[in-house]
């Protein structure tokens, strides 16, 4: 069991966008068990739509997906001023340095490669959301 930490910030659900059902399943389970609300989308176009309607504080975004890839989704999100609070973590099996650079250039806040460790992901999510809560109250 992961260490218990202060209850998560409840400013909205975490959105996971990926076309791999098992990734959706594992991330959803992990985050729900950590006490977050999780929403999912199975392709880029649907993902972008859900980002706009849900305005989540944090998005996990896969790159290689049908109907609009992750780079495009990220660009669209970062171009929208009303979504500036949204933290985007690109999560991809494309592990080369050039892919990472391209993701960050496209405006992603963070780039994680698959396979990932759920423990580390949970840790990052907590840190990010805590920082955001701190900056909001400040």
């Amino acid at each position: 069991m992961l260490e218990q930490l202060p209850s998560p910030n409840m400013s909205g659900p975490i959105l996971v966008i990926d076309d791999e059902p098992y990734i959706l399943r594992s991330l959803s389970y992990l985050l729900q068990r950590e006490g977050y609300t999780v929403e999912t989308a199975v392709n880029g176009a649907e993902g972008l739509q859900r980002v706009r309607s849900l305005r989540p504080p944090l998005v996990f975004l896969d790159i290689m997906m049908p109907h609009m890839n992750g780079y495009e989704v990220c660009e669209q999100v970062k171009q929208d001023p009303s979504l500036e609070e949204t933290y985007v973590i690109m999560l991809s099996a494309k592990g080369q340095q050039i892919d990472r650079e391209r993701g960050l250039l496209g405006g992603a806040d963070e780039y994680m490669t698959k396979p990932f460790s759920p423990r580390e992901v949970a840790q990052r999510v907590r840190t990010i959301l805590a920082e955001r809560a701190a900056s909001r109250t400040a």
Partner: protein
Amino acid sequence: MRLSAQVLTERLHFFWNGPEDLPRNLKLEWRFVAVRWLGIACLAPSLPLAHLPFDRLAAAYLVLIVATVYNAGLQHLMPRRPQWLANGYISTLGDALLDIAMVIVGGGFDSPFYFILFTVTLAAAMRYGYGPSLGVALLYVSADGIGYLAAQQPVGAPFVVRSLLLPLTTVLAGYLREQAQQAEAALQERLRQSNTLNEVTGMLGASLELDAVLRAAVAATAQLFGSDTAVLQASSGLDGHAVTLPAPIFSSGDGHSPTERALESLCSRYAHRAQIARTTDDELISIEYLSTGHQAVVLELALPTRQLSLATIAVAVPAGAAISLDSDILDSFVERITLAVENASLYRTLADRSQDLQRAYSDLATAHQELLSVDEMKTNFLANVSHELRTPLTSIRSFSELLLAYEDDPEVQKEFLRIISTESERLTRLVNDVLDISRIEAGHMDWKMDSIGVSELLSDLGRTFAPLITLADLTFDVQLDEDLSRVYGDRDRLHQVIANLLNNAMKFTRRGGTIVLRGERLDGEIRISVTDTGIGVASADQERIFEKFQQVGDTLTDKPRGTGLGLAICRDIVEHHQGRLWVDSTPGLGSTFSVALPSENSELLRAA
């Protein structure tokens, strides 16, 4: 009035020029006839004015009557028997006899009248050259002499002077005339040659293409020499390639006449000689004799700057015919033709070089592009493999860690273990597929080629798949032709191909659909096909699905995802069997994947 004037003009024209179809050489003769008519017309009324005794006057009129008959006869004969009058002997003889008769009647050779007639007749006879005019002169002299003899008078000094002077003048005049004619003929010939030279060298300038220039050179030489046979042999290095292939021979004819063959061998002899050694002192123009009885003029096209001659031209002229070409015209011709050939040769060399360069450049560019694309393909393949491996690995790692972290939830433990197992299988399949495709494409696959019974293979597959397909609520049908021959191939690999196609059909066909496995003979091939009533493949994707890592569309069922390599491997395997694999599909209605394999006894396989 106007009409009669016109008729008069026409008559006068006919009187002076004769009929339209009169041969050209008789035009002058006809005018003499006209002049005679004028003479007769003038003399007839004026004879009485000469105060001749009656008998002489009568004789003179008699001579005039004879002259009239003679002139009318000539006029009559002229259009009908032109050949009789062409050499001038008849008319000059007739004129001379009439003159002598007139002279005798008119007062003998001493009279001044005689000199007038003599001069006019002699001058007229001069138009036929020496022969007729000398004949006329001798006729006068003999008539003069006979006159002396008949009168039994001693031969006087005037007779001697006349008799010597007359032929002498004739000879002198004839000689001068001959000289003038020769000079004019020479001038005409030179003019003709210069015209020909300009004409033929004009042909040379029409093109810079070597072949065209060489052909023009042959034609020009033949034309210049007035010959119908000329042959050119280009030296072998002419087109810029240092090769000793048989040099092309250009001929003005069809190349088959004995004269042309004789000229060709002559050319070869010269070309060979020129290849061994050519000094600048060698004559460029020589004359040889051919076995066919012709003589040949050989021109060598050589430049001081080139060690070898460019080409050799031989032209046949009739044996014994004088070669009347001026040497400076001939030299100028050879010089111009040489320059034209040299220019064309340089042009060809230049064009070849530039083409070579172009080709080399484009080869280089292609090679570079190929290297780049091979490199890119490898990189892409690796990136794809890495991506595909990471996906199941991610699942395995995530779910095993989740299992460890949240062991309190027995409900999901089973689900996670099942996922881990599925993803392990997927990983294994992927690794196997990647190994397969790498082995096939690197040529390291260990093929176990043997004679395979297609019926047995397909029946086997049918038995294996029937329960699986039925379980998925699909209808399955196996249709095999009776006379399926055997194929030569790797049984396990072909089994793998058909199994892959059947698995795909199951993945993409809705419940209640139908899958048909068919084996038939078509056009000497074995055709194995898997037809489904599934979702189909859009025509834009029908080629793409055979590429590596190109999955199209989502599977309908919860069947595990493929590796994206299955169809690529299938195609590689089928192509190794010299077969073809393709898809016919209508989206929404279904697909047919077909494998065509050469039957075992076909030529194609035996050659393999």
